């Protein structure tokens, strides 16, 4: 039984709509001839107001009455399309443009005022209605001992003059959310973007372009370039796998090809002709062949995403593409290689992919899948065997997991996120023969969930095409989408039918922007605050609405640009939320701290990102955090897409140890090596040699300082000046190490055997400067600036 899905869906949709945009609640001071219904709040506001054409803030109504009760409770029915649309109490969502919000809020306030001050037996109609009296159609929506009631009661008291009305504090305009925040410099932003999306440092040309300061246009141009690079698509695939987890389906990769349809081809590698290879090498070659084939077929869903984005196709193809991506190797598995082989540039490249359509599947008994086109009814990810296998079903689950994942992945609705409780779920189960179709608490949800499940009915538990022999279940709601039944003649292409509706659903664009947000920020978007008793409710709501506003705007731009996903990346990167990097003014106010809590990217680099950053800075990866044999990948917070599916967001002590190990090791492998290069080729020490000793002369110290500045720039991405405290600290570290070495006895005049040996030659280090620089690099690699994004 799934409890109250419809309520969740509708509540989420409504909240999404309600919270679409602005958080600034103000209302216009009405003209004098329109004050008939104005309450003492208004009169107070008028009396203290000295100028026309401005707005008076009523924080009490906006933050308490509206935010905690009106919007969350009354508006669900009391809107022009709601269950109470025939009442006189029709509220408006405070959405849209800022001015519209102000107007809507003021209209709502007037209605609340009228209702609050209208009396029945000296009791406020607002309070009576809310508590189910006066034949309130929605019965009791507010309990007398609840916070919601107290808010309404307080509002009544204020409106009726029993309590002081608006106070000066109540009318204080709010500090803008981004007040006193600081955005990162364009150069740092550039480095963040190229490292994050293209796994490289910016080029000098890009720095120059940014320095010329034509602002967003420069960044846009850089992003256009970055989003053509292969590294971006590696990142894109990695990011979307974090979301869809398609790399993690069970079993050997080729198992997604059913025995019934691909029994003759799916194991092609076992009989592939390897005779050109010497016999002694054939077994190894066959293992490689199998490995490449498996990797290639497992990667197909993510390659679809890459293909769509790389070619600027509408991202709606994620659910509507009438093709799949195949490589020369995976094409053999499907048995279509011979037809396609001329289309590949390199038939021996297991990872060259091209789009193609599968013919309608033919089973071993000779029966061909029903298809009016002659092709398998592809519908992007929805109909890919890999996706279907990753989210299997059972005889009793009846594709409900697939339905749930569909909502989560493509419409951004997590059905299981906030499951409401019922009084006794077990009793409900037992009371009805078929609770999902009979129990009111279940029906409201299953009427939405089960029709989607029905659309997947042609696929069995493993994701193979294989409708139930007995036909689809009749004791659950029939196939369809949000109230629209699937026409019988569309059954053969039910997922295409779903894909088209998904692409047209406004939630799709929002969900995709949220996915991009996740890829860029490493965390999910904020959830709306639920607990109105939380003293930080309004602060959380404000932060939430600010983020929601951005997501909404970007979704709109994404849609306007023909669902080009690159636009979503560019718009989010251009946002304050992505670029805010600091605070100009400290605050000890918990409310303010709450508002600021999610600001700033501040993301611990994943194992993959950290390896790429090391390669970008040092020219080669560390190599121990990733790869099939890596023992540190999961330990460092990575995922296997299967049992470990969420990345660690904060470092444990074990991860701290790995960071120490990495910093020691990377410094060990790179410092001595760099000094042996021609200065023009050096990455780390282009303008200093190991014979420059601290405190030997002002010139020597200056050279060391400049070397430190360079290291800060290349490793930390900081353009520190020579007198910056952090540069001074690093310089001091270098000087202290050299000093300690000088004072110590028995120090070898050569570098260490393990780290300071290049081409089997152990480097001289008479003054310990080589080892001191290695210590400095180790120190810098342990910094927040290096390990976080």
């Amino acid at each position, binding site marked *: 039984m*799934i*409890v109250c899905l419809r309520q969740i869906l509708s509540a989420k949709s409504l909240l999404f709509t309600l919270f679409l945009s602005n958080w600034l609640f103000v209302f216009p001071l009405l003209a004098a001839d329109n004050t008939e219904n104005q309450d003492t709040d208004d009169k107070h506001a008028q009396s203290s107001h000295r100028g026309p054409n401005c707005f008076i803030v009523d924080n009490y109504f906006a933050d308490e009455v509206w935010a905690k009760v009106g919007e969350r409770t009354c508006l669900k029915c009391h809107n022009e399309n709601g269950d109470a649309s025939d009442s006189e109490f029709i509220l408006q969502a405070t959405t849209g443009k800022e001015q519209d919000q102000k107007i809507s809020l003021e209209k709502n306030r007037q209605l609340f005022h009228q209702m609050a001050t209208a009396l029945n037996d000296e009791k406020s109609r607002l309070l009576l209605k809310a508590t189910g009296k006066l034949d309130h159609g929605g019965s009791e929506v507010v309990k007398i001992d609840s916070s919601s009631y107290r808010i309404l009661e307080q509002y009544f008291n204020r409106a009726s003059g029993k309590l002081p009305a608006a106070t000066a504090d109540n009318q204080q305009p709010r500090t803008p959310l981004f007040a006193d*925040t600081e955005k990162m410099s364009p150069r740092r932003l550039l480095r963040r973007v190229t490292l994050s999306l293209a796994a490289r440092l910016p080029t000098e040309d890009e720095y120059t372009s940014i320095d010329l300061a034509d602002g967003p246009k420069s960044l846009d141009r850089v992003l256009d370039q970055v989003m053509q690079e292969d590294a971006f698509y590696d990142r894109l695939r990695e990011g979307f796998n974090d979301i869809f987890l398609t790399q993690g389906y069970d079993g050997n990769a080729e198992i997604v090809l059913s025995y019934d349809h691909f029994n003759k081809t799916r194991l092609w590698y076992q009989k592939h002709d390897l005779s050109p290879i010497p016999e002694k090498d054939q077994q190894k070659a066959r293992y490689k062949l199998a490995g490449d084939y498996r990797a290639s077929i497992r990667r197909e869903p993510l390659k679809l995403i890459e293909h769509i984005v790389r070619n600027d196709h509408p991202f709606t193809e994620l659910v509507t593409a009438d093709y799949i991506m195949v490589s020369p190797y995976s094409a053999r598995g499907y048995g279509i290689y011979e037809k396609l082989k001329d289309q590949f540039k390199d038939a021996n490249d297991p990872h060259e992919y091209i789009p193609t359509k599968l013919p309608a599947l033919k089973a071993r008994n000779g029966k061909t899948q029903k298809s009016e086109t002659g092709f398998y009814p592809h519908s992007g990810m929805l109909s890919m065997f890999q996706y279907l296998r990753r989210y299997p079903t*059972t*005889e009793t*689950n009846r594709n409900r997991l697939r339905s749930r994942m569909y909502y989560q992945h493509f419409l951004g609705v997590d059905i*299981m996120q906030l*499951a409401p409780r*019922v009084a*006794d*779920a*077990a009793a409900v189960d*037992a009371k009805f023969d078929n609770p999902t179709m009979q129990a009111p608490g279940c029906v409201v949800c299953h009427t939405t969930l089960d029709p989607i499940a029905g659309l997947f009915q042609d696929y069995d538990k493993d994701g193979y095409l294989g409708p139930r022999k007995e036909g689809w279940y009749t004791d659950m709601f029939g196939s369809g989408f949000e109230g629209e039944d699937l026409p019988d003649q569309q059954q053969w292409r039910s997922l295409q039918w779903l894909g088209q509706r998904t692409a047209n659903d406004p939630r799709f664009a929002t969900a995709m922007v949220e996915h991009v947000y996740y890829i860029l920020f490493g965390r999910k978007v904020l959830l709306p605050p*639920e*607990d109105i008793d*939380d*003293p*930080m409710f309004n602060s959380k709501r404000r932060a939430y609405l600010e983020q929601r506003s951005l997501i909404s705007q970007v979704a709109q731009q994404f849609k306007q640009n023909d669902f080009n996903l690159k636009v979503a990346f560019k718009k989010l990167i251009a946002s304050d939320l992505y670029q805010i990097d*600091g605070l100009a003014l400290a605050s000890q106010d*918990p409310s303010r*701290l*709450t508002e*600021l*809590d999610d600001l*700033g990217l*501040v993301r*611990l680099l994943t194992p993959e990102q950290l390896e790429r950053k090391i390669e970008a800075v040092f020219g080669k990866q560390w190599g121990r955090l990733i790869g099939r044999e890596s*023992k540190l990948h*999961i*330990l460092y*917070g990575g995922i296997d897409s299967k*049992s470990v599916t969420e990345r*660690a967001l*904060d*470092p*444990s*002590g*074990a*991860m*701290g*140890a*790995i*960071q*120490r190990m990495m910093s*020691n*090791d990377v410094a*060990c492998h790179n410092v001595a090596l760099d000094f042996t290069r021609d200065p023009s080729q050096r990455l780390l020490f282009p303008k200093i040699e190991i014979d420059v000793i601290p405190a030997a002369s002002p010139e020597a110290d200056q050279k060391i300082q400049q070397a430190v500045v360079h290291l800060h720039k290349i490793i930390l991405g900081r353009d520190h000046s020579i007198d910056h405290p952090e540069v001074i*600290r*690093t310089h*001091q570290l270098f000087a202290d190490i050299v000093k300690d070495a000088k004072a*110590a006895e028995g120090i070898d005049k050569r570098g260490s055997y*393990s*780290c300071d040996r290049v081409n089997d030659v152990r480097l001289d280090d008479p003054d310990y400067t080589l*080892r001191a620089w290695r*210590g400095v690099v*180790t*120190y810098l690699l*342990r910094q*927040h600036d290096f390990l*976080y994004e």
Partner: protein
Amino acid sequence: MKRRKFIQLCGSAGLGLAMPISVPLYADGENAKNESTGYEGPYYVVFNASGGWDTTYLMDPKGINEINRLYQEGDILTQGTLHYAPNAAHIETGMSNEDFFKKYGHELLVLNGLDYSVNNHSPCSRYMATGKLDSLAYPTFAALVAACKGADAPLAFLTFGQYSATGNLVPMARVPYLNSLSKLANADALHGNARSPYHDSFVVDRIEEALNQQNKSRKSQVRLPRVQRSQSMLYAAQINSKALQRVTPYIPKTTPKQRLSQQADIALASFKAGVCVSANLSIGQFDSHNNNDPDQMKLLPEFLAGIDYLMTKAEELKIREKLVVVIQSEMGRTPKYNKGNGKDHWSIGSIMFMGTGIQGNRVVGATDDKLFQIPINPATLKTDSENGIRVRPEHIHTALRELAQIDDHDFSLQFPFVIPEEEHLARLFSGA
């Protein structure tokens, strides 16, 4: 504003660690505990039968109404005051109920008739782990107790799966292979070999000192809450990681084959070394929609064997008396078989406890012949169909917090349960 009030506000704000830097959050060198001992217990272990166990084949036997096909009501066994389902004749490997209850019955507290309120894996897992159904922000009990009692331990909260939210209070640590810990134990030496340090010791000291000075200097800087929090956590992670050296002596020379035993070894070595407060152990595949009986007869013995392994090894390591063990699943299974001989999700289940502070050989709560919950009187813990309360995860978690003496901790106050005082199961663990 008083500190406690401030922390409560921060907590209700979901700020977690984003508190003023005057409030110590993680060990930052100055607060690090004596490295020679570390955290000394109690140690908290939560065993999860992931997927939903069949309680009628374990601690809440029925044998009637066609609830069970493998035994009848008359076959039900007892150990002290506990009743359990017989299964020795139906298992091939692992530990039978007979052996388990015989060995641990005197220590076991069984609570039957726990109302999960919903019956889907995701919300149920969250609810059972945190005590809060409708929030994604709450930490699991294991994470909370780790944060309250030893956040500066490098592996304070170990998890091997199942719902593991931390509430931003403490990092979660995943250690898939025990041997990998030995390599981390000496991160300042090449290949973990202490005889091949990367740097001379005075260089390491200088690096640590520079990082320490940097950390101190940041406390006066104006930073975004996220920056402040993450810098604090990063510094603590690196500093605290040195304590991993203490794990090395306790790493077993051989690795057991059983899933839970492998996890138990990692947890026990970490407990013994004082680098861990709590561990979330888990095995899956209990979701027996098809062929319930064969699946449960395979998994329950494996599960019990894992618990037995932990307790036995803990005895050898002389930390058994410091363990608090919670044995749970995120849901139960229906009191009837479906057409595929499986059992589907059921929102009533059971939970077991044993360890320090827990009075064993007791059963609290009950289900009726159709596996519905029978309410209990929270004061007497006796069943009371008329006036009793429906015991839910928040009642259990409130009691667990009290058992762990963290109910008044600042971190716990950030994540409160709204339960009337009269519903507290004050005697749940003590029995008196």
